[in-house]
């Protein structure tokens, strides 16, 4: 089995990494799969698949409520998953790590719990023009309910936030800032530390949508000083159905539970229910046990390779990709921020994105086409849709070359 301990002092060996991901060795239309839709979801290393398999084949049982051996083990492994997430984000404690289904649910939890208690009529919530729908709609719903106002930080033509505009928006009416760390549609990496510093100067908490950043960058929530941070396990080489909401303990403690049920209570009578402590207060019902275990295995894997090394390697790939792809005739890159990671969003001449995706597929190349759940940002750049190639730790320069060749071929076919 190829669970290589990738020595930190050695050069990054992408072939060794690829060997850990079974799905990368599939073919499509008789051609080796070139998987470049990582911003959508990433493939899973053997270690994650094995952890899920082991759980279901050797110790599947419900957690927190039984006194027999396999249940003790599942409880232990489930909580280990949480401890690994705590380490991965550098949170202060495991009680700050709430398991949810995905980034989307994490944001909804904050909107429904923190938002509904702290936002009132005429109050303001600030987001940006490059948010994923997951960080737009929950706030719109809240604003609608409360009569609050959603403010949107504009972006420039490169896809960078206009920070002066943001500064002007902050006021005593601002109750929360929700900002994407790294844009799935443009690749822009936002200056979240600065955004947070400015918000905190007004006493405003900040939620960071880390769905895209968590698997590309080293995350340190203490250094960043965000109040909330969300990400999805499935983009971090882990299983679907598990996600994380990190929240500062002081905030989480003040917040009312969002959902009620088993596990989130300390005692229940028909007169009064006493809620459980953190993090269980926010985890009603049987959680995604296998999900936590699988996510823990993904984090072990990433720690084994080293997030810093992955970030450095991906940066090199990105720089290479920029050169190779901008040389494709007729290609216009959407999103050219100075601080950018792992995402190439583009249009070619007047080729429809769906045709692009369909024809690339015949060459075994998988990219995302469409609006990337970010209609407002597509509108901002005056495009109906884009093709998007997004990188992960296992992609290679050869794959980027294959994409460039593929794009030229598609242009010929449709020409």
């Amino acid at each position: 089995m190829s669970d290589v301990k990738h020595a930190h002092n050695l050069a990054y060996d992408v072939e060794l990494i690829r060997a850990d991901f079974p799905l990368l060795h599939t073919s499509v239309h008789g051609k080796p799969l070139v998987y470049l839709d990582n911003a959508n979801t990433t493939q899973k290393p053997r270690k994650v698949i094995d952890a899920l398999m082991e759980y279901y084949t050797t110790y599947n049982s419900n957690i927190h409520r039984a006194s027999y051996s396999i249940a003790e083990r599942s409880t232990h492994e489930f909580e280990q998953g949480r401890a690994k997430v705590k380490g991965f984000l550098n949170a202060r404690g495991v009680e700050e790590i709430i398991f949810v289904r995905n980034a989307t649910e994490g944001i909804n939890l904050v909107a429904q719990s923190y938002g509904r208690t702290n936002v009132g009529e005429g109050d303001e919530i600030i987001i940006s023009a490059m948010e994923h729908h997951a960080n737009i709609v929950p706030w719109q719903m809240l604003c609608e309910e409360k009569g609050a106002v959603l403010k949107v930080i504009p972006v420039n033509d490169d896809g960078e936030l206009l920070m002066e505009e943001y500064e002007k928006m902050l006021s005593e009416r601002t109750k929360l800032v929700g900002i994407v760390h790294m844009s799935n549609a443009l690749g822009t990496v936002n200056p979240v530390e600065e955004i947070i510093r400015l918000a905190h100067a007004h006493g405003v908490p900040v939620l960071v949508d880390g769905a895209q950043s968590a698997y590309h960058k080293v995350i340190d929530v203490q250094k960043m000083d965000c109040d909330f941070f969300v990400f999805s396990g499935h983009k971090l080489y882990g299983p679907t159905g598990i996600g994380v909401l990190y929240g500062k303990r002081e905030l989480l403690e003040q917040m009312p539970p969002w959902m009620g049920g088993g596990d989130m209570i300390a005692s229940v009578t028909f007169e009064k229910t006493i809620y459980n402590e953190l993090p269980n207060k926010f985890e009603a019902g049987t959680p995604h046990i296998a999900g936590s275990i699988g996510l823990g295995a993904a984090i072990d894997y990433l720690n084994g390779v080293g997030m810093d090394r992955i970030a450095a390697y991906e940066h090199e790939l990105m720089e290479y990709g920029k050169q190779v792809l901008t040389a494709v005739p007729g290609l216009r890159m959407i999103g050219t921020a100075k601080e950018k990671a792992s995402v190439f969003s583009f249009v070619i001449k007047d080729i429809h994105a769906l045709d692009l995706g369909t024809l690339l597929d015949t060459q075994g190349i998988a990219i995302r086409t469409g609006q990337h759940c970010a209609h407002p940002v597509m509108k901002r750049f005056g495009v109906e849709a884009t093709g998007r190639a997004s990188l992960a730790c296992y992609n290679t320069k050869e794959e980027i070359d294959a994409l460039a060749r593929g794009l030229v071929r598609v242009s010929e076919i449709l020409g």
Partner: protein
Amino acid sequence: MTRSQAEKAADIEEAFSLFDNWEDRYQVLIDLGKMLPPMNASDKCDSNRVSGCQSNVWMVATLQDSPTGPVVVFSADSDASITRGLVSILWQVFSGQPVSDILEFDIDEFLDRLGLMSHLSMNRRNGLFSMVLRVKALAASAGVGA
């Protein structure tokens, strides 16, 4: 002499039978799309849209009299080339054809025979099915009136 529905279907089937790889078959579709008569730009509006999302399909269909009885005539288009090819197939086998032929023609089975069914994304499939439904509904309404 215009070709009958059966003849047109046979032509399309023959074009597809020449190729077994998908790049070439999509090329056939793209070429079929180029044979589709242009649609008035003003007709490509929301009220004529039969499906949206990843690609748009628009259609205007009318029931017309002909010396041999009522026919359904339509113009249609898509903003994506491959989808336009599929629209073109529907146009060839349905537009200007007698209502009885339209009602009898099993389009699902036909697309399946071309190998297209398993390759259509949900999005495209929904668009095509809504087109077919509209055409068949129009054809059926002629039957009722007669």
